[in-house]
């Protein structure tokens, strides 16, 4: 994992001191709320439905045990004993006091954490593949590049006041586990003739105007990547619509001027930027990369697992992924227990996951955009002990990528922007499909719920998506089918009139029943939907 150097630490410490002063001036009346609001947002502090909410950055979703324990400590000491892992691979605390926030940020800084780039019209926390460094299919580890982009983007003087927020994802495999093409810029590291470089996708996003990012550059060498990003941001910064918040994202710029014209302008800018020498010297890149060297794997680690416990075997099949290193595996810890709150973890659960990472997993954890936690490097021989420990803490739900592994935003239960509650709908769907055999019979089925059009719950990218709306003061839920955030990216299609909370659960069951009736062997829900089309499902839903 990356470790701060003296500059990183000084930046974060100075930011804490600055915010402590700003909070004191707000509380004493030297700053009005209009003056203070943009300052607190630059430090991840929102005013939500019930209280202040602090969003803490987890760069590219990577944590060590000490950082994870710090999150548990914050939850226990300053919040109400839990935190909420988000679809941006961050964590949010829902019950924060303004008076406490400088102390919280100071405590976070002792473990090289902060809340910078979690709000505002800047380049937000960089997201990445939760299997980075562990997956066999990656061409390189994306984390050094994500870290380099983090350093480049933090307090970048040109890009601190962009037309709108800006999200970047970096992956390095053909399998997209980070919804890369639904980001403002998606970077896929690739090799051409042995040379490392990147495919650059621009203009993706969800929200009220969902779009899939366009391929803007098929290959930019790694040596030129930062210059190319600088150019891509400059063109957006210059021409992005600052006059209309709903048209200010880069996806709208691309839509308005066209991908070809945007590409032409970026190339022109790139030819100028490249002369500025902002790409890192090889020594600096090597310094960063060294932090992400593979852990000291045991070459003799046994590659077999005793599957005699049937519950353990189900969890193995569902939640454990193949690792590039023989004898090792990737563990997905589901934060989606049946009837729970998607993405929530108690302070005790957070501590336990930290303990397991420290004891069994080379001290590493990852937060996924699907609101789960990953232990990326564990010995297969330790899987049973890990499963037992997780089982005792309500963390062993064997449902990864099944219908109950629901992405859900906080919705109207917590969020000031929401129009409808998301979590109760998720819980009712989980209850309806609680039977493990039924879930596994349905197979991979990614269900995603947003409580408003801002789409924090990624409903556009759900195989089945749900969008909560306010219909004359009553919660109403629109159903979408056919979305995907993976390498087979697509946007879901609204089925028709919406439903109440129970009605949308019934409608989903009609959809899954039709799927089971229509599918041929080997198909996932999404495959069947794409093969037979929208009509049979619409007919099943509405008759």
């Amino acid at each position, binding site marked *: 994992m990356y470790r701060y150097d003296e500059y990183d630490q000084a930046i974060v410490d100075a930011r804490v001191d600055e915010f402590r002063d700003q909070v004191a001036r707000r509380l004493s009346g030297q700053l009005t*709320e209009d003056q203070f609001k943009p300052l607190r947002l630059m430090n991840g502090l929102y*005013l939500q439905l019930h209280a202040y909410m602090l969003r803490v950055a987890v760069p590219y979703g990577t944590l060590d045990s000490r950082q994870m324990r710090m999150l548990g400590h914050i939850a226990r000491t300053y919040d*109400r004993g839990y935190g909420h892992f988000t679809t941006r691979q961050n964590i949010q605390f829902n019950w924060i006091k303004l*008076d406490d926030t400088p102390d919280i940020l100071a405590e976070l800084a002792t473990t090289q954490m902060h809340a910078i780039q979690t709000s505002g019209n800047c380049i937000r926390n960089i997201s990445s593949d939760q299997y980075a460094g562990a997956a066999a299919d990656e061409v390189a580890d994306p984390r050094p590049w994500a870290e380099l982009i983090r350093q480049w983007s933090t307090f970048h003087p040109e890009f601190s006041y962009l037309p709108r927020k800006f999200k970047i994802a970096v992956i390095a495999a053909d399998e997209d586990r980070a919804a890369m093409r639904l980001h403002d810029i998606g970077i896929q590291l690739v090799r051409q003739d042995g040379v490392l470089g990147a495919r650059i996708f621009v203009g993706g996003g969800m929200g009220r105007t969902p779009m899939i990012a366009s391929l803007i550059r098929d290959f930019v060498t790694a040596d030129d990547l930062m210059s190319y990003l600088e150019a891509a941001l400059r063109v957006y910064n210059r021409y992005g619509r600052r006059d209309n918040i709903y048209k200010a994202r880069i996806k709208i710029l691309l839509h308005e001027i066209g991908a070809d014209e945007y590409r032409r302008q970026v190339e022109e800018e790139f030819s100028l930027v490249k002369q500025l020498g902002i790409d890192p010297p090889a020594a600096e890149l090597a310094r960063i990369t060294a932090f992400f060297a593979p852990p000291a794997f045991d070459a003799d680690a046994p590659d077999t697992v005793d599957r005699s416990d049937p519950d353990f075997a189900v969890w193995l099949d569902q939640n454990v992924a193949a690792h590039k290193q023989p004898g090792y595996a990737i563990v997905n810890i589901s934060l989606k227990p049946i009837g729970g709150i998607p993405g929530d973890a108690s302070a005790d659960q957070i501590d336990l996951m930290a303990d397991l990472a420290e004891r069994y997993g080379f001290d590493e954890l990852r937060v996924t955009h699907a609101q789960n936690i990953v232990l990326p490097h564990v010995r297969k021989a330790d899987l049973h002990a890990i499963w037992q420990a997780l089982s005792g803490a309500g963390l062993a739900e064997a449902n990864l990528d099944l219908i109950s592994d629901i992405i859900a935003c906080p919705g109207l*239960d917590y969020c000031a922007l929401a129009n409808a*509650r998301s979590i109760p709908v998720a819980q009712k769907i989980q209850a309806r499909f609680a039977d493990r055999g039924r879930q596994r019979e349905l197979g991979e089925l990614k269900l995603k719920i947003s409580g408003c059009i801002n789409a924090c719950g990624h409903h556009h990218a759900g195989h089945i998506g749900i969008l909560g709306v306010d219909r004359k*003061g009553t919660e109403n839920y629109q159903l979408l089918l056919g979305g995907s955030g993976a390498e087979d990216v697509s946007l879901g299609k609204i089925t028709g009139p919406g439903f109440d909370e129970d009605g949308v659960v019934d409608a989903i069951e009609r959809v899954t029943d039709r799927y089971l009736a229509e599918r041929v062997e080997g198909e996932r829900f999404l495959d069947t939907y794409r093969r037979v089309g929208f009509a049979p499902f619409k007919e099943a839903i509405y008759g």
Partner: protein
Amino acid sequence: MKILTGNDLGSGDVIWWTGSTWSRHVEDAADVATDGEAIARAEEGVRRVVGAYVIDAAPTAEGPRPAHIKDRIRALGPTVRPDLTLKPADPNAGSWVI
């Protein structure tokens, strides 16, 4: 009736204007008629509240009930964590929200 709500500047707690001060309990909220915005400006000026706004509510025997579900959730707490609401021991509290 019109009632005035906002958040306590320091704690962030949801608070309701009682006619003379702020309360965490919506039952204590007073009808502000057409004075809400003026009260909000004055109270924000002395830093007793942040983000104050006026909402519609229905008078009931138990006190004002906000017209919109969002404000009823604000008044009680998250529907999915009854243990964290203002009335964790009241099994009927949730039905007041919905």
